[in-house]
C-alpha cells in the first residue's frame, strides 16, 4: 500500500489515537519517513496534543473551589443528620433569620450607590461572579478591560456587590443597565 501526503494528513489524528488499520499504519509510517512535510505535520500535531493534554493547561480562578463549596452548602437539601449536624443547622438557622432581616431592608431601600453618576442595574443574576476593585465604584465581569485598579481586585457575587453599593459597568454589564 502506498499513501500520498493528503491521506497522511487526513488520518494523522486517527494515527495518533492508534485508530488506523495495521496496513495503513505501516504505509503511513513509511511515507512519513521519506517526507519532510509530513514529518513536520506529525511532530507538530503530536506536540499540540501533548501540550494541551498537560494538567497545567487547566487553570481555575483563585477561590473557585471555596465559592463552589459555599454555593453547594447554601443549596443542600435537608438531610438526615446526627446530633452535631442538628446543632450546626440550628446555628445556621439563627444566622439565616438574621440575614433575612438585613435582606428585607435592602429590598425596600435600594442601597446608596458609591458613585453619584452611575446608574443601578436591573436583572443582574444575583449569583453571577463579578469583580470590584477595593476603592472602586463599579463591578465588572472578570475579563473586562475597564477594571481600573487591577492590583486590588476582589471577587464576589453580584448580590454582594450591589448590596455594597457598586454599580454595573457600562461596558461589560451593558445588558443589565436600566434604560434612561
Amino acid at each position, binding site marked *: 500500500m502506498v499513501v500520498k501526503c493528503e491521506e497522511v494528513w487526513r488520518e*494523522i489524528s486517527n494515527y495518533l489515537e492508534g485508530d488506523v488499520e495495521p496496513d495503513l499504519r505501516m504505509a503511513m509510517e513509511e511515507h512519513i519517513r521519506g517526507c519532510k512535510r509530513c514529518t513536520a505535520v506529525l511532530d507538530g500535531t503530536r506536540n499540540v496534543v501533548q501540550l494541551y493534554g498537560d*494538567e497545567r493547561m487547566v487553570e481555575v480562578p483563585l477561590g473557585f473551589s471555596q465559592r463552589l463549596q459555599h454555593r*453547594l452548602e447554601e443549596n443542600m437539601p435537608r438531610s438526615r443528620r446526627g446530633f452535631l449536624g442538628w446543632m450546626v443547622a440550628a446555628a445556621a438557622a439563627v444566622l439565616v433569620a438574621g440575614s433575612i432581616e438585613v435582606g428585607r431592608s435592602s429590598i425596600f431601600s435600594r442601597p446608596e450607590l458609591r458613585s453619584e453618576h452611575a446608574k443601578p442595574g436591573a436583572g443582574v443574576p444575583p449569583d453571577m461572579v463579578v469583580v470590584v476593585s477595593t476603592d472602586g465604584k463599579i463591578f465588572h465581569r472578570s475579563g473586562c478591560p475597564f477594571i481600573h485598579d487591577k492590583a486590588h481586585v476582589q471577587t464576589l457575587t453580584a448580590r454582594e456587590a450591589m448590596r455594597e453599593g457598586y454599580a454595573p459597568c457600562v461596558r461589560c454589564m451593558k445588558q443589565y443597565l436600566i434604560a434612561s
Partner: protein
Amino acid sequence: MPGEGTWLTDPAVQLNEEMLIRRIREGEHDLFYELIRPYERRVYSAALAILRNEADAEDVAQEAVLKALKHIRQFRAESRFSTWLIQITVNEARMRIRKHHAHMTEPIVDHQDEEGNYIPRDFADWREIPSETLERKEVRQKLAEALATLGKKYREVFVLRDMQHLSIEETAKALGISTASVKTRLLRARLMLRDLLAPGLGGSWSSRLSFEKGTKPW
C-alpha cells in the same frame, strides 16, 4: 496520556464513587462535595471552552454542579459519573449562549465547511515546544488564546478529548454528536492549532492573534 485519565478509570475510584452516590441518594447530601471535588476543574474548563469568559464559566460550573446534585437520582450507572457531569455542564453552557446570544460573537472559522479536508499551511521543520515551558504563564496564555480562536464546535471536541481525556465515545455522548463527527472535528482542531503554533508562520502570531510582533515565548 498523562495523569488524570488513567486515574479516573481506576476501579477503586469507581467503586468509591458508587458508594458515595448511594449514600447521597439515601440522604447524606453532605458527601456530594467529596463526589464532585475530583472533577470541579474539568467542569470549569468544559464551561470555559464553550463560553470563553471566566465569570460566565464559573457561574455555569456552579449551576451544573447544583443541577447534578438535584438530579442525582436520575444518574444511571451505565455511564461514568464524570461523563454525566460534563454532559450537564455542556448543556448548561450551551443554554447560557442561547440566552445571551446577541452578546456572544463566534469567530468566522466556525462557519468553515467541516466536510472539506483541512490542508496544513506550515511545513517548516517542527521546533518542539517542550512541556516544561508550561510553567510560564505567558506560554499557557498564548496556548489558551490560540484555542479561543477556534470555532466552538472544534473547541468543544478538542477540550473534552485532548484536555480532559474523555474517550471518543464519551466526547460524542457529552456533546450529542456522532463519533465520526468527533473524529473529523478533532483532526481539524489539532491541525488548526498546529498551524497557529507553527514556527514557520511567524507573521500570523502578530496579525491573527495580536501577539507581540515576532516573539514567541518558547
